[in-house]
C-alpha cells in the first residue's frame, strides 16, 4: 500500500512573526522555517504504518519555493521513500494546493493520503478536506487514531463534544490532529541517507493546475495588545477587584 503525505514549509513554531512596516504582509525574510508540526505528525503516522508492515511506500509531497526541498529532505529523513516538489514562486492558497495534490494523487494512486490538519501560518484548516472533495474520496479530518485493515481505515476523530469513530473504504484522506502520535526526531544516519533518496521536481504548469489566488490580502496588522495587569497579594483582594473593579462577579 502506498501512502502519500503532504508537507508544508512553514515559519517555525518558535518564531514570533512580525508584520511588515507597510502592513502588506508578514515579514518572514530570514526567519527559521520548518516542517509544519501537524505535517510531522502526518509523516510519523505514515512511517508507523510502514513499520507495521501495512504501508510499502511513502511518498512525501510539498508545493512552493525551491527551499521546500529542505522540508522534503526532512520528510525523507523521517522515513519517506521518495519525494515530489511542485515548485513555484507563486502564492499558494489551500484550494490551489488541494488541486496540485489531486493531480499528484491521480498520477501516484496512493491508497491513503495523510496531511496535517492545518498549517500554523495561515491556520486555514482546509487542504485535506478540499483534496477529498476534489477527488470525491472519503475524508477523516482531525484524526487522533488511525487503524488500517485491508481496504478499510478506521479513524477516531477529535470533534467538539469528544471523539467520533468512522470507517472509510480506501482510498481516503486523513488529516492529523495533535494526539495522533508523537513524531520522532530524525537520526543523523537517516539524515545522511535522505540526501540520496529520490526527489523529483514538477511544476503547477506541468500538472495543468491554475494556482491563481482567490483571496487577496488587503492588509495585515498586529492585534491590540492587552495592557499589563496587576499582581494581587491574596484571594481577598482578587475577589474584591473582580467584584468592584472588573465587575465580573456578582
Amino acid at each position, binding site marked *: 500500500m502506498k501512502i502519500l503525505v503532504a508537507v508544508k514549509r512553514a515559519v517555525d513554531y518558535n518564531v514570533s512573526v512580525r508584520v511588515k512596516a507597510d502592513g502588506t504582509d508578514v515579514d518572514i525574510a530570514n526567519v527559521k522555517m520548518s516542517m509544519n508540526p501537524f505535517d510531522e505528525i502526518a509523516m510519523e503516522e505514515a512511517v508507523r504504518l510502514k513499520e507495521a508492515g501495512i504501508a510499502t511506500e511513502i511518498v512525501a509531497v510539498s508545493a512552493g519555493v525551491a527551499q521546500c526541498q529542505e522540508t522534503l529532505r526532512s520528510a525523507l529523513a523521517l522515513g519517506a521513500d521518495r519525494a515530489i516538489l511542485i515548485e513555484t514562486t507563486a502564492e499558494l492558497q489551500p484550494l490551489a494546493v488541494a488541486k496540485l495534490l489531486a493531480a499528484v494523487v491521480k498520477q501516484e494512486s496512493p491508497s491513503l493520503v495523510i496531511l496535517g490538519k492545518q498549517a500554523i501560518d495561515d491556520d486555514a484548516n482546509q487542504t485535506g478536506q478540499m483534496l477529498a472533495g476534489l477527488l470525491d474520496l472519503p475524508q477523516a479530518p*482531525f484524526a487522533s487514531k488511525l487503524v488500517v485493515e485491508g481496504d478499510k481505515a478506521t479513524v477516531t476523530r477529535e470533534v467538539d463534544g469528544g471523539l467520533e469513530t468512522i470507517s472509510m473504504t480506501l482510498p481516503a484522506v486523513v488529516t492529523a490532529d495533535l494526539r495522533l502520535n508523537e513524531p520522532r526526531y530524525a537520526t543523523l544516519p537517516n539524515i545522511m541517507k535522505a540526501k540520496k533518496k529520490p526527489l523529483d521536481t514538477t511544476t503547477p504548469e506541468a500538472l495543468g493546475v491554475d494556482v491563481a489566488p482567490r483571496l487577496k490580502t488587503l492588509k495585515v496588522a498586529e492585534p491590540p495588545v492587552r495592557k499589563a*495587569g496587576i499582581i494581587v497579594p491574596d484571594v*481577598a483582594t482578587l*475577589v474584591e477587584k473582580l467584584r468592584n473593579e472588573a465587575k465580573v462577579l456578582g
Partner: protein
Amino acid sequence: MSILVIAEHDNQSLKGATLNAVTAASKIGGDIHIAVIGANVGAVTQAASAIAGVSKILSFDDASLAEQTSEAVAAQILSVAGQYSHIVAAASSMAKSVLPRVAAKLDVAQVSEIVEVVSADTFVRPIYAGNVMATVQSSDSIKVITVRTTGFDAAAAAGGSAAVEAQTVQSVSNGTSFISREVAKSDRPELATAKIVISGGRGLGSAENFKIIEALADKLGAGLGASRAAVDAGYVNNDLQVGQTGKIVAPQLYVAVGISGAIQHLAGMKDSKVIVAINKDADAPIFQVADYGIVGDLFEIVPQLTAAI
C-alpha cells in the same frame, strides 16, 4: 444577495453557535436562510425559524443524515449552493470538516474563522495563532465562510417566524460509515459559550487534582477548560482543550490555574474580557496577558477562592 447559514445542532437542539453565525451573516447583508441538515430535526428547525432576521429554513431531514458525516452534509449544501452568494457556518468541527469540501466542489476559496465582516467580500481573520490579523478580499462568486463565534454576538433566538421548507435529500454513498461517538457528558455550561471559564494546566499535576478547579467552576456556574499540556498528560479529555487547535473562548471571566501560557494556549483565550492567572511561577507568560494575577500555590489559592465567592 442571499446567505445560507448552516445550523449547528445535534438533531435535538440548535446550538448557540448558530446564533453567532447568523449575526455574521446579517453584517454581510442580504436574505438569511438557515439549512438544518440531520435526522428528525423538527425541534431544531423550529428553533431556527424563531431566530430574528432569518427568512427561510431549509430542512434536510433524513435518517441517512443522523450522524452528519462530512460527505453527506456537503452533498446537501451543494444541492442548493448555487442559489446563494455566501455560505456561512460557525467554525465547529462539523463546519471545519464540511465547508472546505463544499468550497472545493464549487471551485471557490474558503475564508476560515472570520472575526469581522468589513464588507460583503472582505473579512478579517486571525493567522499565526492570532498573532496577526489579516484582512482578505474574496473574488469568488460564492463566498464560503466559517465564523469564529467569539467575534460576533449571538442573534436574538426569538422574534423571527421563518417559513420551513422541506428539501429533497441527496443520497450519498462514498464509502464512509459512522461507527461510534463518545461525547463527554457534563452539566456544566458549554465551553465555547460560557460566561465564565475556569481552565487547568499541567500545574494541577493529576486528573484527581482537577477536582479542585471543578469545585470552583461549579460554584461559579462556569465552563471547564484545560491547556494542551493537561490534555496531553491525560488529566482531562481533549474536548476541554482551549487553544489554537482546541476551543477558542472569549468569556467575561477566564481563570487560568496552573497554566504557564504557551502561545498556542493564549491564542484560544486572549480575547476574554477579564483574565485571572494563578501560578506559582512569577515569570510565567500567562501573567503578561492577565488582568489580575496571584503568584502562589494553586492548591492553597483555589480552595480559598472557592470559599470566598
